[in-house]
């Protein structure tokens, strides 16, 4: 198992409601010494714009509690301000890597736009700031299920990137899990962290994988092993919390097996979550071919 996927293009979508630099800090850990193309994405939510044309709608301001009438022009101005803030943050952070990022602005439904833009990237980084924005994160849009729809790698980076002390790998014996293992190893090496492996399967499979992975020289960083059966994936947050993980790397298809898994993990944990897609090749590499 010596799969070493190369990242050529990274799509970064910062939470427009509360963009955080932790997302950008995480980039170093995710791509290491590779120098991929970086593309920032800002989505102007048409659903939100549609609200302003509705006369009956009322807006209550978060910080003052004041009640406002929705106004398209004001909303456009606020979106513009968000876009400028996000672009400035991205450009500033990328200057550390001596990279000049591309910055793309699209208008549409957030989910649809993200899925469409993700087709041209090996890695999609979605920034989240749940602690600051609460339920307002990504304007309340649930993006966890995207993990089941994107072939590449989808990383939900929460703003506690630097606090965890390990990399958690969720391994279920699939080929996608092998890609997860390779990615987890790379992050652990880049961040100089130990790994914790969570084997998801029946006890016999888990023992086999443990033996195989344990003897694999490619997995020397695994310090702890846990086994849970697939129906008990709900226990995953407790295991990850006990391991004080900075990031969980898991196969994206788990979201199909257990809908709302990633959304639930994001709600319960402060660590980041990286879902690895099914495809052997990303759309980006295909596109280049």
């Amino acid at each position, binding site marked *: 198992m010596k799969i070493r996927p190369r990242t050529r293009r990274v799509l970064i979508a910062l939470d*427009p*409601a509360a963009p955080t630099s932790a997302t950008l800090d995480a980039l170093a850990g995710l791509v290491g010494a590779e120098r991929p193309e970086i593309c920032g994405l800002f989505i102007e939510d048409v*659903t*939100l714009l*549609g*609200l302003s*044309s*509705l*006369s*009956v*709608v*009322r*807006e*209550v*301001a*978060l*910080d003052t*509690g004041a*009640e*406002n009438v*929705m106004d398209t022009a004001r*909303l456009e101005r*606020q*979106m513009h301000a*968000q876009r400028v803030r996000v672009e400035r943050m991205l450009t500033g952070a990328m200057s550390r890597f001596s990279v000049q990022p591309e910055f793309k602005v699209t208008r549409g439904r957030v989910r649809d736009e993200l899925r469409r833009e993700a087709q041209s990237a090996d890695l999609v980084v979605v920034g989240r700031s*749940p*602690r600051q924005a*609460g*339920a*307002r994160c990504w*304007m*309340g849009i649930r993006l966890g299920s995207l993990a089941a729809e994107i072939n590449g790698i989808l990383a939900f980076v929460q703003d506690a990137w630097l606090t965890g*002390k390990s990399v958690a790998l969720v391994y279920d014996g699939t080929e996608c899990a092998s890609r997860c293992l390779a990615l987890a190893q790379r992050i652990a090496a880049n961040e100089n962290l130990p790994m914790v492996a969570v084997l998801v399967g029946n006890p016999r499979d888990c023992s086999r994988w443990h033996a195989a992975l344990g003897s694999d020289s490619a997995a020397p960083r695994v310090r702890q092993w846990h086994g849970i059966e697939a129906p008990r994936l709900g226990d995953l947050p407790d295991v990850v*919390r*006990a391991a*004080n993980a900075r990031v969980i790397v898991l196969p994206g298809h788990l979201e199909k097996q257990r809908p709302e898994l990633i959304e639930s993990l994001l*709600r319960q944990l*402060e660590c980041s979550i990286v879902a690895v897609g099914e495809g052997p090749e990303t759309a980006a590499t295909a596109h280049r071919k």
Partner: protein
Amino acid sequence: MNETSTYRPVVEALSAEQTYRECSASALGFATTADVVRSGTIVGQERARRALEMGTRIRGTGFNLYVLGPPGSSRHEMVRQFLRDEAAQRQPADDWCYVYNFDDPRKPQGLSLPPGRGTRLSIDMRQLVDDLSASLPAAFESDSYRNRITEIEQDFQRRGREELEALQKEAEQQGMGLLPTPQGFAIAPVREGEVIAEEDFQKWPKADQEKARASIEALSAKLRKHFENMPMWQKEHRRRVRELDRETALLAVTALIRELSEKYEDLARVVEHLDRVQTDILENVRHFLTPESEGDGMAEQMGMTREHWLRRYQVNVLVDNRRLSGAPVVYESNPTHDNLVGRIEHVTRFGTLSTDFSMILPGALQTANGGFLVLDAERLLQQPMAWESLKRSLYGGAVRIESLAQILGVISTEGLDPDPMPLDVKIVLVGTRMLYYLLCEYDLDFPELFKVAADFEDHIDRNPANTRLYAAMLGGIAQARGLLALDAGAIARVIEYSARISEDSTRLTTRLRNLGDLMCEADYQCRQRAGSVISVADITSAINARITRMDRVRSNIYEAIERGEILIDTEGFKVGQINALSVMQLGDFSFGQPSRITATVRVGEGDVIDVEREVELGGAIHSKGVLILSSFVGARYARTSPLSVQSSLVFEQHYGGIDGDSASMAELCALLSALAELPINQALAVTGSVNQLGRAQTIGAVNEKIEGFFDVCKRRGLCQGQGVIIPAENVPHLMLDDRVRAAIRQHQFAIYPVRTVDEALSLLMGVDAGTVDAEGVYPANSINGRVQQALAELADKRQEFSKGSGDDGSESDQA
């Protein structure tokens, strides 16, 4: 009288031995100064030593010392040496530290600790911070802490989320959606997960529209209430986090602080400070948890980094006496206000001056506390506010660190006001006598604060014991200056030079700096000739080189005399003309210069016109001398008749100011020569003052004056009979140059010591001065007799003239 006179004066010329007192090298007790053991004795300054002893040992306020003495007399060195010995017998003073004042950071707290423990405390506090920087993050990374903080976080988030979700559910039940916006939340009617369009809404029945509006109003109100509650939840959340932090930190902090408190249990104020440190750490434990490197340039500039915060636990050891074995002795060579009382440094942050207790620096008063502080009085008085600050500190018994700007009130920036340091120090001011008396006269505080005067003598007696100690002291100076060793002969020569510059063969100067410099110059001479030991020849070369360096003006004057531009006769006889001797001072160098004085007489009313005074070139003392000699003439020769002469005295070819009375005997002799019409021997020069009774009196710079006339004679070629008449009392002051003494030995030059003006007159005119008889008359052929006779004739002429003009006093009486 003239060259043919057969009169032999009774005054004997001095022998060469009488004009110089040699120092015996063999009596010094060493071969070279390398053998000398440097001693701490203050040679011949018993009075000053006793004053120093008393001043340094006496208790009570105001018993500080003022050391008086001439500049260059090594008072500073002698005082410091004395104080070092005195301090060595005392206990070292306490350390003094400043620590952060947690109640009022503007007023740093002072701590006094036994010597060495200030630094120890500083190290301990640094170690405490290091230990806490390691142990606190460890405690805060423990599973236990993480679980508990997560629980608090989740509680907080759950509370907000649950309420919002409940609100969302309620909205859904009413066909409404709670939708996030950039500013907050919007409430809108929703059908099948999609916000309804405006045109669809307008198609709704009015009742449904009203119902929707009512629902939106009600939900908005609930949402507002939810937001209003959030700050309280956040406050509660922060309180719980703080409590957990405090609880987590308490264990690690308490153990370390307790250990320190036990170590310093004998120092109540230190223990008190440690308690405050503990409280502060528990309240601000988060600062120990941020990584050291955290903090960008702006945070650094604004003093908001972790390092800046942790600085409050440091100890600023202002006075560290751990290396002292006795009381401190501090010499502050630049006694500015700041160097005396200490200062507070500042750093600039965003154009604003910022400071804290760690930037307090000590002054000499703090460093010398518990011991002695030596200051140069003149330098102290030259520094703005330094003297005032010193007096304030001494009066208050404490040093308060204030900047000049604060004292003068020229800045309004808030600064620090550290605890004043209790003061127990002896101040030793070293200065001139003039300054001492001026301070006594014009500064009312001075006598209160400096009650002990240690007066250093300008000279010490040149007796055998003192000479040996003096020689040892010179040896010590040579050693201290790192000079080549001097042999005993060289030291003896330096001692002779010392007697010469003190203008007394029986005394030695205390201006040792001059002698130190001379030995240094001799060292140079010795090295020039590749010698290893400084000899007499090197000292003599150094003395001659000194003279040569400063000799330009003297050479020019002597050359002018030689060329006849300045009229000086060194042979022959002249009536009313005499060679007087003056001395010219050019910096450290002085030399004698012969001057011609002439006197003329005519009928008059007893006035002696001092031309120098008339043109305001003569000083007060010179005028006094002329008035004395005029009084002498009247009292001696015209006691019973009017003094009917008007005479003029002139210092010929003198165009600058002249002062002193050392020429008064010469002026008198010239005047009497003019009256008696007896010529004066120009081979002789005269120096000395005279009193109203005709007694010769001592004058200064006798050696320079004699050598000055000798040099002029020598340039013209010495001939027998040349010499100088001096007051007999000046004989002990003679330390004449070797070349003068050689001429004396060869009878080419002579020094005549006289006691009276009569002896001088006899020598100058070769005629007996004459002794007055019972009727007040002098022998007719004597000098005095001829003067008496001349004055009587002038009186007769005046009377005749008066009769002719009808203005006679006797007629008036008869009338």
